[in-house]
């Protein structure tokens, strides 16, 4: 059952992104930014966490989940560290995902060769 909800909610979040791409001419980078900021806002007003509890990875894997994570981390940091938390909360919350992207990005750049995309079409 958890998988069905993950599929449906995750799929729906992606489908909304596709609608935005096709109908608004928003560039991919702008869509990613909108998703993260939307996630922060929805997380802040407490709407997104119930969705994560319900749909699991279906809500946490899309970038809105990343935004929600930022909001959640910020809440915890401000509670624990007060004013300093405003500055540490964001990066602490997203540290795992971003560090993974940096490290694996670097590793791929070192190990792999670029691909010739014209051979694939």
């Amino acid at each position, binding site marked *: 059952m958890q998988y069905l909800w993950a599929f449906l909610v995750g799929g729906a979040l992606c489908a909304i992104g596709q609608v935005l791409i096709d109908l608004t*001419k928003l560039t991919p980078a702008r869509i990613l930014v909108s998703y993260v900021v939307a996630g922060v806002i929805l997380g802040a007003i407490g709407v997104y966490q119930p969705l994560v509890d319900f749909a699991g990875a279906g809500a946490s894997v899309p970038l809105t989940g990343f935004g929600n994570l930022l909001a959640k981390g910020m809440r915890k940091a401000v509670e624990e560290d007060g004013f300093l938390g405003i500055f540490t909360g964001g990066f602490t919350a997203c540290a795992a995902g971003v560090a993974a992207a940096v490290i694996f990005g670097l590793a791929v750049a070192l190990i792999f060769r*670029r691909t010739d*995309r*014209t*051979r694939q*079409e």
Partner: protein
Amino acid sequence: MAKYINDGTIELDRGVSVYSCAAAVGRMESDGPLGNCFDYAAEGAELGLTTWEKAESTFQQYAFDIALRKAKLIKEDISFIFAGDLLNQCTGSAYGLRDTDIPFFGLYGACSTMAESLALASLFADMRIGEFFAAVTSSHFCSAERQFRFPINYGGVRPPTAQWTATGAGCCITSAAEKAPFVKRITVGKITDMGIKDANNMGAAMAGAAYDTINRHLINTKTTPQDYDAIYTGDLGQVGTDLLIELFRRDGVQIENIHKDCGLMLYDREKQDVHAGGSGCGCSASVLCGHILPMIAEGKLHRVLFAATGALMSPTIVQQGESIPGISHLVEISDRQEG
């Protein structure tokens, strides 16, 4: 001696010949409908080199070398080279031709550079300032993609109006000689801004320029589209082609039967994922040098207009919100010296 007619149109003296030509292309282009007609077709797009930029330069070098070889010329026979490409500061040409030791004019006309360089090389031939002249251009999907858009391995979404930069190069060698095909007239493009701001819709940005140049050529030479076997545009793609036909239709001029677009000819859009069609200097260059000019030399075509089209933009300027001006240079080519 060349004669100025009116409003950018120049009539050349009799006997300015495209003495030799050659096209070198990548794998996708040789897999397309014109695949058999190119002088050199690579296995892929990298030619075993470490950077895409080196590969693009090498395509240009190949086109130049093959064009020389086909005419049994050596590089010392060439008096001037006119060359350009899409890379910043025209480095594709500069690096591709740096070992030639031939006086060099670097040109930038975006994807219209094939017609621009051929026009200048023809004018020099007309003026007899030297004997042989080379016009060379290239483009490369991967080097263009990383400069203008995204990294090759990025999974961004391309809208249906986007075009596919052709990988390839073309070279024409002109001379005052009695050997078909002949360059008869030239109409120089004007910078034409139709107000299009979408960098994923270059065909729409350039169609106005193509209309302006072709229309001026027809008026200045007192000809109609029916006087030609074909009117080729460079890389308008499907959207630009539809717009060009509509613009002429508004004047009561029918061109759909004789108009062809190199961007639509180079690929099979059903089987190859190129969206609205091909683009890039290498697109019109390889179709001109691999298909159109040989057809004229064989007498299968008699009189054609070749109007390469370019979008004079940079990613920086487009991000600043400016619209995209287009330009189209036109060369009239015939298999006869007279008329």
